[in-house]
């Protein structure tokens, strides 16, 4: 139920058995079925979700009802609308399950209490946010300075495991292409091999 969560936690900040037990009491185990929402736009995001099993995505919907995916989360990853979680403002993203999933949720109150009482949780949070910031910088750089083909190649090289589990139109959305453009790029790449 929490195996992967603590495996990842221990990679970043090693915990004693006692600390692990203390943290476990703050965690909420949650199963989500495919296509169910963890969060819908307009609600306040009350959780940070860690994926033990399955796959989720976060996306916004524009005025033409087009879904724009900003993040995927597979096993070992964390997903949330962090702005809404931290400020209490309504979420601008939807988060739903792409597969039947098992999650470990950390509520706002649990998060704040652990930050106050468990120094290693604060370190873990800092490392997570630093990692997310670096990933976001890299993603912005790719989007503003790479060609469509480079963006796709970059995605496949960085996240080969996501490419195998997620439909092509979602990958197109994530890298800011139309499905038709992505299809052309894929055709070109496969004929060039």
């Amino acid at each position, binding site marked *: *139920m929490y195996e992967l969560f603590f495996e990842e936690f221990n990679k970043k900040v090693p915990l004693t058995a006692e600390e692990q037990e203390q943290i*476990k*009491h*703050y*965690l*909420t*185990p*949650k*199963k*989500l*079925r495919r296509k*169910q*929402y*963890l*969060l*819908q*736009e*307009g*609600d306040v995001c009350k959780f940070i979700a860690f994926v033990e099993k399955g796959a989720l995505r976060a996306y916004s919907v524009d005025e033409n009802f087009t879904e724009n995916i900003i993040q995927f989360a597979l096993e070992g990853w964390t997903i949330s609308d962090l702005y809404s979680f931290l400020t209490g403002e309504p979420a601008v993203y939807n988060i739903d399950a792409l597969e039947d999933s098992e999650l470990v*949720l950390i*509520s706002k*109150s*649990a998060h704040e209490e652990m930050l106050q009482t468990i120094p290693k949780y604060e370190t873990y949070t800092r490392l997570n946010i630093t990692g997310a910031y670096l990933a976001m910088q890299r993603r912005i750089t790719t989007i503003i300075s790479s060609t469509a083909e480079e963006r796709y190649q970059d995605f496949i090289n960085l996240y080969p495991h996501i490419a195998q589990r997620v439909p092509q139109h979602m990958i197109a959305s994530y890298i800011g292409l139309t499905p038709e453009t992505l299809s052309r790029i894929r055709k070109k790449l496969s004929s060039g091999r």
Partner: protein
Amino acid sequence: MITKQTITIVGASGSTGTAISSSLLRGNYRLLLCGSDLAEVQKVVDAVKRHIAAAEVEALDCTLDACWEADIIVLAVPFAEVQEVADRIREVVNQKVVISLASPQDNAHDAPATGVVAELQKLLPYAKAVRVSANPFTGSKPAEAFIAGDDAEALQTVSELVSTAGYRPVVAGAGTTDASATEGKV
């Protein structure tokens, strides 16, 4: 709330299950119903769906899985059975709101002296225990439902749920003194 919440009702067979399910389906909830006899629980699902065709309600034979999926858990079982249910679901209800509908008045022989919430909290130390007792005898319309518990956020969640079900929520204070909730001393 826009995001649909999942509520698991343990002990959902019979007229009690039908009544609770029908009233909760007025809100933005998806219901998972569990009971000792799955065929009986399925009858409740069928009855509810006859009235509300689009209702998201499902019978599950595994209480552990149903509570794992749930955001909120309702224990519609007599207090004598709460311990057995608590033993089964303990590992999946951490930080979740768990509501007991057990009434010491109705089950005087097995009612704990310290109060249902305090006992439930002891059995599920990392859940947010709340007790709800409806009092249809106050003459007030809508009828009042007394809510007892120690966690402010959980009391707020349950107040909203009780309002959806058509009752007027009356928060009766901390769970450790929830005898007052039974007696309507608020």
